[in-house]
C-alpha cells in the first residue's frame, strides 16, 4: 500500500493525542445544531501554526470527521441535522428514536460513519491522483443537472403527497433567491431590507425548519419526547453489527457515492447523503420500510457523509481545489505553513501527505469507541432530562447555533420566523426536507445554468452544451429514472394486485 512506511510517523503519541482530541471535540461541536465542521476547523487554525504540518493536518482532519459524525446525534434524537450533512439522517433516524430505538440508531450511525470514513480515506490513500480528475470533469452544466437530479429526489422523498413535496421544493427555491445573487450580483426579493441582502443561511433554515417545530410540539403535547423502552440506553452493538453486515451493499455503495460527491467542489456532504439515501431507498429489499424508521436510511446517510471527508481531501491535496468548505479552511492553513498543494505535493512532500492520511484513518478508527461512548451519553441525557429542562436547553442551543453562523442576530430572527412557518406548514402536511433541498440546490442550479448558457452562447451551440456532454446525459438518465420509478413501481404493484384478484 502506498506510503505504508509513514504509518509509524502517524503513530507518535502527539499525533495520537491530536487525533483523539480532534474526534472528541469535533463530535461534540457537530452535535450542536448551528456549529458546523467549517467553524470548528476555522477556530483551530491559529493553533496549528506552531505545529508540524502533518500533525496540524491530523488535528484538523480529525475534528472535521468527528463533526460530520456528531451531526447524527441531533438528527436522530431531535430531528434536527447538527450539520447540513446529516439532513438525510433525520428521515429514518428520528422515527427510530421515536419508537424507542434511539440508542440503536446512534450505534448504527457510528458504525456506518466509521465504514464511510474508512472507505473515503482509503480512496484518498490509494487513488487520489486519478480520482481528482472527477473534480475537473464537472463543469457548470454538470452541476446544473446534478442540482436538478437532487431536486428530483423530492419526488422520491415526498411522504404521501407529491404535490406538497413539489410545492415545498418551489418554496425553497424562491427562498434561495433572496439576497445578492451569487453570479450576477443582482439584488432580489429583499423588499428594501438590508438584513435580507445576505439571503437565508442554510444552517438557519435547518435549525428553524427542523428543530423549532419539534420544540413547539414538545411543549404542545403531554407525551414524552422519545418513547423509552425498559432497560434502553445500552450500546446494542451486536444487533447493529448484524444489521450492518446484512446491509453491507448499501454501506459500501453509499460510501462510494459519498467519496465521489465529496470530490466535486460544488457539492457537499448534504448532497452526498441525500443521493445515497435515495439510492438505498430505491433499491430497498422486501420488508425494508424507508422513512418509517429503517436503520438502512441511517447507514446510507452516515456512511456517505463521512466518506466525503476523505473524498474532499482528494482535489484539495492533488489540485489545490477545496472539495468541501472545511477543506477551504484547511487549505488556507496549509498556505500559511508554506505548503503548496498540487500534483507535486505527493512526490515532494510525500511524508507529510501520507502521515496525514494515516492519521485520518487513525482518527476514523478512534471514532468508534469515542462515538459509542459520547452517543450513549447524549442519548441518556435526552431521555432522562425532564421536558421542562429539555425544551429550554435545546431552545438555548438553537439560538446560540443560529447566532454562531455569522455572529449575526438577524440569522436568529430568520431561524425563528422560518420555524414558525415550518410548524404551520407541517400541520398541513408539508415537510421540511423539500424546502431545505430547494434552498441548498437552488443556487447550484442557477449558477450552473447561467454559466452553461453563457458558455454555450459563446460556442453557438447551447443544445450541445446542455444535452450533448456524456456526464450530463448520464445524470439526466438517472434523474428520469428516479422521477419515473415510483410511478412504474406503483403501476406494477397495481397490475400484480389485479392479477391476484382475478
Amino acid at each position, binding site marked *: 500500500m502506498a506510503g505504508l512506511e509513514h504509518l509509524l510517523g502517524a503513530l507518535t503519541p502527539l499525533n495520537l493525542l491530536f487525533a483523539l482530541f480532534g474526534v472528541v471535540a469535533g463530535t461534540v461541536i457537530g452535535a450542536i445544531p448551528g456549529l458546523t465542521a467549517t467553524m470548528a476547523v476555522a477556530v483551530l487554525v491559529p493553533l496549528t501554526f506552531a505545529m508540524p504540518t502533518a500533525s496540524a493536518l491530523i488535528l484538523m482532519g480529525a475534528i472535521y470527521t468527528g463533526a460530520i459524525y456528531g451531526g447524527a446525534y441531533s438528527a436522530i434524537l431531535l430531528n434536527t441535522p447538527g450539520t447540513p450533512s446529516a439532513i438525510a439522517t433525520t428521515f429514518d433516524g428520528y422515527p427510530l428514536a421515536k419508537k424507542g430505538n434511539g440508542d440503536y440508531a446512534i450505534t448504527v450511525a457510528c458504525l456506518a460513519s466509521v465504514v464511510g470514513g474508512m472507505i473515503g480515506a482509503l480512496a484518498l490513500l490509494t487513488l487520489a491522483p486519478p480520482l481528482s480528475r472527477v473534480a475537473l470533469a464537472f463543469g457548470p452544466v454538470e452541476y446544473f443537472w446534478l442540482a436538478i437530479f437532487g431536486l428530483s429526489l423530492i419526488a422520491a422523498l415526498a411522504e404521501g403527497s407529491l404535490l406538497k413535496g413539489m410545492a415545498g421544493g418551489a418554496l425553497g427555491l424562491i427562498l434561495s433567491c433572496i439576497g445578492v445573487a451569487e453570479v450576477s450580483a443582482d439584488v432580489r426579493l429583499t423588499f428594501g431590507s438590508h438584513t435580507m441582502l445576505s439571503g437565508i443561511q442554510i444552517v438557519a433554515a435547518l435549525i428553524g425548519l427542523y428543530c423549532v417545530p419539534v420544540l413547539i410540539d414538545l411543549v404542545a403535547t403531554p407525551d414524552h419526547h422519545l418513547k423509552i423502552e425498559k432497560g434502553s440506553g445500552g450500546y446494542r452493538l451486536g444487533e447493529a453489527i448484524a444489521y450492518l453486515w446484512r446491509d453491507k451493499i448499501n454501506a459500501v455503495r453509499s460510501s462510494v457515492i459519498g467519496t465521489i460527491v465529496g470530490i466535486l467542489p460544488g457539492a457537499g456532504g448534504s448532497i452526498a447523503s441525500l443521493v445515497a439515501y435515495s439510492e438505498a431507498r430505491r433499491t430497498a429489499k422486501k420488508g425494508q420500510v424507508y422513512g418509517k424508521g429503517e436503520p438502512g436510511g441511517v447507514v446510507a446517510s452516515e456512511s456517505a457523509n463521512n466518506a466525503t471527508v476523505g473524498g474532499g481531501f482528494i482535489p484539495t491535496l492533488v489540485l489545490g481545489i477545496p472539495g468541501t468548505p472545511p477543506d477551504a479552511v484547511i487549505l488556507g492553513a496549509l498556505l*500559511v505553513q508554506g505548503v503548496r498543494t498540487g500534483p507535486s505535493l505527493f512526490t515532494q512532500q510525500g511524508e507529510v501527505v501520507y502521515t496525514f492520511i494515516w492519521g485520518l484513518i487513525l482518527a476514523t478508527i478512534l471514532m468508534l469507541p469515542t462515538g459509542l461512548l459520547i452517543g450513549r451519553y447524549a442519548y441518556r441525557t435526552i431521555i432522562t432530562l425532564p421536558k421542562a429542562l429539555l425544551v429550554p436547553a435545546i431552545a438555548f442551543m438553537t439560538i446560540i447555533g443560529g447566532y454562531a453562523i455569522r455572529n449575526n442576530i438577524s440569522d436568529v430572527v430568520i431561524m425563528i420566523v422560518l420555524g414558525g412557518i415550518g410548524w404551520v406548514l407541517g400541520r398541513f402536511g408539508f415537510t421540511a426536507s423539500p424546502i431545505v433541498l430547494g434552498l441548498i440546490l437552488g443556487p447550484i442550479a442557477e449558477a450552473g445554468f447561467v454559466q452553461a448558457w453563457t458558455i454555450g452562447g459563446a460556442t453557438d451551440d447551447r443544445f450541445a452544451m446542455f444535452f450533448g456532454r456524456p456526464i450530463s446525459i448520464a445524470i439526466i438518465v438517472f434523474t428520469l429514472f428516479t422521477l419515473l420509478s415510483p410511478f412504474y413501481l406503483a403501476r406494477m404493484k397495481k397490475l400484480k394486485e389485479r392479477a391476484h384478484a382475478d
Partner: protein
Amino acid sequence: MKTTIRRKFLTAGAALAVIAGFDLAAQPAAAEYPEKPISYIIPFGPGGESDITARLQQPFFKDKFGVDTVISYKPGGGGAVGWAELNSLKGDGYTIMGVNLPHIVLQPQQKDVGYQTDDITMLYWFHYTPDAIVVTDDSEFKTIQDLIKYAKANPGKLTFSGSGKGTSPHLAQVTFDKLAGVKTTYVPFKGTGASVTALMGKQVTAAMAFTTVAANYEKTRLLAVAMEKRHPRFPDVPTFREVGLDIVSGAYRGIAVPKSTPEPIRAKLTKMISDINHDPAFQKKMIDGGFAVVDYAYGKSEQDFMKKMKVDATAAAKAAGMLK
C-alpha cells in the same frame, strides 16, 4: 445607625465602581493596548484571498506584539453585510475588519447596501492581487499576443472565467476588450477558486484572475499581469503595458475599524499593521503567494489613494455599463 453607615459605605463603593468603570469605558487605555485577543472579521467565506492574507498576518501579530487574532467570517452580499455592520460594532480596537476594493466604491453606487464608501474608517491598504490572464499549462496560447490574435479572429468565442460580477476581474475583462479591440465572453463564478476550477477543467478558454493563481495552482500559466512592473515571483511574465494595453488594476485589501475607535488606538493599530507590512519575512510570504504588497496607511497616504481609487473604479465601472 449601623445600617446607615453600611448603606453609605455601600453607596460610596458603588459610586466608585461606577466611576472607575466609566473611566475605563471612556478612555480605553491606549498605553496597554492590546491586552486581549483582537477579533479580525473577514466579510467573506473562508479560503479566499481575503482569508489567506489575514491568515498570513496572524502569526506576525502574535510574534511581534504578542497579541492573538481571532479570524471569523461574516459572508453575505459580496462583503456588504459585514461593512454595513462595521460601525455598529464596538470601537475599542479589539474589532477590525477586512475591506476590499473596488467593492466598497462600487457597491454603494450600484444599490442600497446599508453603507456608504465614506462610512468606512480605513486604517491600511496592505496589498493587492493584480489582475492577470491565466491559461492552463498545456494551452495553445503561449503569449498574450496569441490570445489577442485568436480573440480578434473569433469575436465572442473566447471565454474568460472570473470571480463574480462588478469585481476587479470583471472590470479588467471589460477594459481588456476595449483596449485590445476584441470581444470576449465573461463567465462569472463564485470566487477565484471556482473560476480556476472551471479553467483547469477546460470549461473556459482562459481565466481573468489574479497573479496568486499561478502561485497556488501548479498547472497554470500567466499570460500578462496588470501591474506597473513585472511581479518578482514571475519575472518572465509581461505586464499589459509592455504589450501596449494600459491596464494596471486588481483587488486591493485592507483593514478598517468601527468609526467609534479612538484616535490613539487607530494610530497604534496602524503602526502594528505597518510593522508587519515592512517585515521582510512577511513580504517574502506575500510575494511567494503571488500577492503584491502596497502601503497606504491611515492619514494622507490612505486618503489620497482612496480619492484616486474612487475615480478610477467608478470610471471603469461606467465603461463596463455597471454604473449609470
